[in-house]
């Protein structure tokens, strides 16, 4: 693992968080590989990938695209007023990286605010990245919430 490679992974994750914090959802979508997936398992970090267990969200590009299109069309009742989010991330820990793939662990706290309401979540991201045409792309973004199985208020953006 070279320092340059590891730094490029950390930069990727930090930049991803910034895109979400700035509401640039279309650009964020562009970070996913064509077969990339965004997964928020209902069992949190103890859920295995092979478990037959549900998720708060388990979305491929098509469903993420639907989510982003709905947000950007400006016609969603639940977005009046609109939601905004802040991801406060710890320094990403690069567990593995080579020229083609990387795995990285990033603890976060997440605040989603909308009008007078605020949702506060915490957990960690597990990214599986793949190198495509000279750039990192998300093969899997797994979001392990501390309280995934709790009764949640609406989470409208992307923890």
């Amino acid at each position, binding site marked *: 693992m070279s320092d340059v490679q590891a730094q490029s992974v950390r930069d990727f994750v930090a930049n991803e968080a910034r895109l979400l914090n700035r509401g640039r959802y279309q650009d964020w979508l562009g970070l996913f590989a064509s077969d990339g997936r965004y997964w928020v398992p209902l069992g949190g970090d103890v859920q295995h990938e092979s478990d037959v267990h549900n998720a708060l969200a388990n979305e491929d590009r*098509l469903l993420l695209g639907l989510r982003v299109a*709905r947000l950007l069309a400006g016609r969603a009742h639940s977005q009046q007023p609109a939601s905004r989010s802040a991801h406060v991330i710890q320094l990403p820990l690069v567990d593995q990286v080579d020229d083609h793939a990387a795995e990285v662990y990033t603890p976060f706290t997440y605040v989603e605010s909308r009008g007078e309401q605020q949702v506060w979540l915490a957990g960690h991201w597990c990214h599986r990245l793949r190198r495509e045409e000279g750039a990192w792309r998300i093969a899997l973004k797994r979001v392990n919430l501390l309280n995934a199985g709790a009764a*949640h208020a609406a989470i409208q953006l992307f923890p």
Partner: protein
Amino acid sequence: MSAVPPTKPVHPLVQDSCVHRDLYTDAALFEQERHRFFARSWLFAGHGSQIPASGDFITLDLSGQPVLLLRDAQGEIRAFFNRCAHKGSKLYTLAQGHAGKMLRCPYHAWSYRLDGKPLTVPLKEGYVGTGLDSSPSGQGLTLLPGVRVYREFVFVRLSPEGMDFEAYFGDALKAIDNMVERSPVGRLEVAGGVLRNTIACNWKMYLENINDAVHPVSSHESASSAARQLWQGHGSDEPMPMAMEQMLPFANGYEYFDRMGARIHPQGHSLLGVNFSIHSAYAVPPDYQAALEASWGAERTHEVLQRSPQNAVLYPSIALKGSPLSMRVIRPVAVNRTVVEAWSFRAVGAPDLLLERAMTYNRLVFSPMSVVAHDDVHLFESIQDGLLAMGNPWVSLHRNLDAIENAQSKADTNSANEWLMRNQYRAWAQTMAQPLASEHA
């Protein structure tokens, strides 16, 4: 249709055509509801597959009451108040677990048999002659006054008062039969985890909305139009992903949603989508159909499979779907707070596809992260605030009101008919107005 003459209200806040906002906003009324309505109704508590072995338990809060469901040494399901007979500590605080051969309170180690009878207490000699044996504290755990297990669905009644189980549900239980008989061996298992939501609204709005065939057109426009536009770019020969198969029917129009048909049952129960529903087009694997026919015969299999209602409501605690095998559980927490859970079922002996459909549908439509639910939840919470407005205190339920309703407790009708909701409030008003035993002179 001729003008509908008003009838004398059973409860001052429930008229033929509308209900008063206090039903949704008055905290004192919510407290009354707990004693007068929920305690005397049959409420869903759990499913037998959650506690398969003797000593297995689940705990839950049911209308403000701590409840412990347990499988006893004989394999029967028991329901207790989750409260030690000594000083009131809950016996268990985990949502699910295994007690072993006896129950033991963590505070002073009072222990109980699996049927709730007292077993031992430490320093026994200190109780000789104290009257413990004849006091309520010496009788062991308190059983819930009513427990009925119907095809593994466990229903309880918190109060000794109220209707008996069969009279309370009647034919509405056929919705459970339809789910269970989707398994060739007649057995369902809770699977895939439970998605849980907390919504800042009164429970009634959620239950009304389950029967509201008119709202999808306007409420879910943002999700359904995004789905439609996205899918338009794909070729017609491309196989439709399950998510699209489940999302696109939300884009249907008013006429479609009105033709689904609805069935009114007594006591507030109902069936929406008697003729068809947004779930009707899901493909049935051929081997699966053959397996069902081997168990139930061709006629019954056809009956089970052709019935994919939008929602069957067993008022006031659950809403069921046969396909996908999904259940919503509605748990009132406060006058303006409701927890809604989405459960998925595995039909034992059926293809994995059925569980996958249930989990996918629940995730797409009932998850806290669902874009369909986001608009519903926003609107329920908006109503909760909006109803505080001074001036007009009434919520209109006039659509398709007809005088025949007062004479009929069971009927088939059009699905946009707000009879489905008026039916819930008639049942609510009857139970609320019924004197408690303590009120009889």
